């Protein structure tokens, strides 16, 4: 076995997986605050990518101003989704709310390319294409920076949930009625969680957009992100981190050896098998909290 090849697949898989975690982070943030699995996060990443591109290419703002500007826009966008869509669903079964987020995903996938033109857009962060070469192992510089950014954002998210506001959000997630009873504004808390998911989408949209360009395929990152949250546990930030690494590493190493034998296409199979096995063996994921309902 070529050890260096294995090492390269492992390192690049690890970095890629943490980039997936960036997308998964938005799903977990909303779930932790509202108990709703958000299937529109892929499209929110795409919209964030489009907005950043438009801010730089059309408004002519430099990157260091454009990113905070889009962070504000996406926070407001998240708030608007909660205000105009989610709030109308209060009292409805969770399944219907999930379907609403899926509908939103489909809607945004069409609206994004419709508004900004379907041609892929370039998002240049100035990272260059030259790889970092360590002992003949080629490490993708953009993914490495993406992985480090993901780690930082996950840590920040964990710190946020230890703040007063974060504690309120966790309370809301646990029990809407009890939160109301102690004077927490549940609507506001859920709105803020959607706003924060919008902010997380900016991180993912920026880094993935720089790697692959900005177009509708950014929204396809929803699939690996779903695998990450199912494996790691949808309500766990540690799960987002570890789940991303597992999905990324297995999705890189196994196809690296299996694809040449079977003719390719095994990465999605690996991801799908991970989803199915996790649901069968550990439905709440590795670090997810198992809710016990007493009747």
């Amino acid at each position, binding site marked *: 076995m*070529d050890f260096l*090849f294995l090492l*390269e*697949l492992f390192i*690049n*898989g690890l970095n*890629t997986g943490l980039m997936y975690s960036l997308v998964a982070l938005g799903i977990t943030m909303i779930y932790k605050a509202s108990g709703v699995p958000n299937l529109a996060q892929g499209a929110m990443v795409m919209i964030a990518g489009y907005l950043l591109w438009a801010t730089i290419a059309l408004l002519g703002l430099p990157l260091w101003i454009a990113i905070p500007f889009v962070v504000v826009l996406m926070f407001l966008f998240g708030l608007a989704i909660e205000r105009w869509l989610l709030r109308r669903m209060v009292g409805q079964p969770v399944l219907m709310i999930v379907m609403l987020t899926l509908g939103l995903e489909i809607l945004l*996938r*069409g609206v994004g*390319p*419709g508004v900004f*033109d*379907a*041609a*892929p*857009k*370039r998002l*240049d962060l100035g990272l260059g*294409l*030259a*790889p970092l070469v360590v002992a003949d192992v*080629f490490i*993708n510089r953009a*993914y490495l920076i993406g992985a480090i950014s993901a780690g930082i954002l996950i840590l920040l998210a964990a710190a946020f949930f230890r703040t007063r506001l974060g504690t309120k959000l966790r309370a809301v997630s646990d029990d809407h009625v009890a939160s109301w009873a102690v004077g927490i504004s549940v609507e506001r808390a859920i709105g803020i969680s959607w706003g924060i998911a919008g902010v997380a989408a900016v991180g993912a949209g920026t880094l*993935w957009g720089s*790697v*692959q*360009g900005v*177009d*509708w*395929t*950014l929204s*396809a*990152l929803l699939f690996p992100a779903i695998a990450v949250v199912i494996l790691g546990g949808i309500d766990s930030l540690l799960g987002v981190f570890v789940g991303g690494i597992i999905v990324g590493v297995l*999705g*890189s*190493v196994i*196809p*690296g050896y299996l*694809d*040449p034998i079977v*003719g*390719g*296409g095994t*990465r*999605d199979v690996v991801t799908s098998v991970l989803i199915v096995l996790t649901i069968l063996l550990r439905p709440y994921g590795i670090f997810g909290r198992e809710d016990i309902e007493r009747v």
Partner: protein
Amino acid sequence: MKNKSMKKFSAALCAAATLMLAPASHAQEVVKFGLFHDFTKVYTFVADEFSQGQRDYLALLNEEGGIKGHRFEAIVRDHGNEPQRGIELYNRGREEGAIYFDFLSTPVANAIAPRALQDKVVLGTPLHGRGDAMVGEAFPYVFPMMASYWSQAARLLKYVEDTQGGLKGKKIAHVHIDTPFGREPLPILQKLAEQKSFELRTFAYPSPGNEQSAVWSDVRRYRPDFVLIWGAGNSQTVSVREAVRNGIDPAKILSVVWLTETDMKNVGESTAIGIKRVEVVQPGRDHPIIQRILDKVYKTGKGAGPEARVGNTYYNYGVADMVIATEGAKLALEKLGPPLTAEKLKAGLEMVNNLDTKGFMPPVTITPQDHQGGGQARVSQWDGKAWVPVSDWAAAYQDVVWEEARASAAKFSQGK
């Protein structure tokens, strides 16, 4: 008496009006083309520009008086790459009188093909659809009209053979999106690998191709002499960037037709100087056809989209599609006379003989047997600003291509 005079006057007026309107209504005979594309899902990277090129060329013909008193109308709708929606649009289009359809989507075109054959309606499938539709006897109403993916792969390998003194002993990597489109050239590549004694290895990445790092690590270690990249849209951008990141010389990379100026801008214009692609139409604005569009369509404010797109590769593909289709219409009207029906358009297309567009595309000859139009293409190279031709128009290894096409078409005819 007064009433009689009024009646006579009215009758005369009606007769005069009829006489006056008769030639006018003849001059406004409308030929409808159903140009239904995927504007919202998978093929969005090409649909807008391609459709704009189609509509602008039809507008140009209309501005120039149409063809033999016939004007052209483009019915444009979105099928979202869904065969069921495509079938609905096809049925509506037929009810509205369309005689030529183009869906610019392989799954939709494949779903429509059996219906078009049954209904005897012309289905144009340039750069998409079934590769074996070039066999006119099996697909009498389906017209690829441009080099198929099989012919494109063959043309790229011929270029390597011509410039490298042969293919023997070469290592060729085929890096492709893991879809039927990405796998399509494999039979031709495998046959040619046997015939020409070169080594072929395939590398597939999952759709939509936004993450390919593991695949390109493997490609780099394979140390190929040449790499074929077979994707579309953003997956091509990712492929080129990963290739460069892995130290593969861009001059050794050869792409399917789907790699454009926009893709190279997204990669970085100076990042992959030297990369090559196969092309079936001349890009840019330096051609009389495109100049006529700019003069007569855009200067009069009748363009179907942003003027900045005019001359882009995909735009020009759309123009070329309509150049061939309307040439068929012209020949049908000249030889068979009005009214123009789908059957006559089919016959007209099969009369297209050595269509000379002064270099806008290779000479096109369509016969009842060959609906591909000859299968000519050329190779061009990215110089940092534009695609520059590095070969002549030519068809390559058509014996191998036709053998594969006939075998596949025979299976279709037998219902397999």
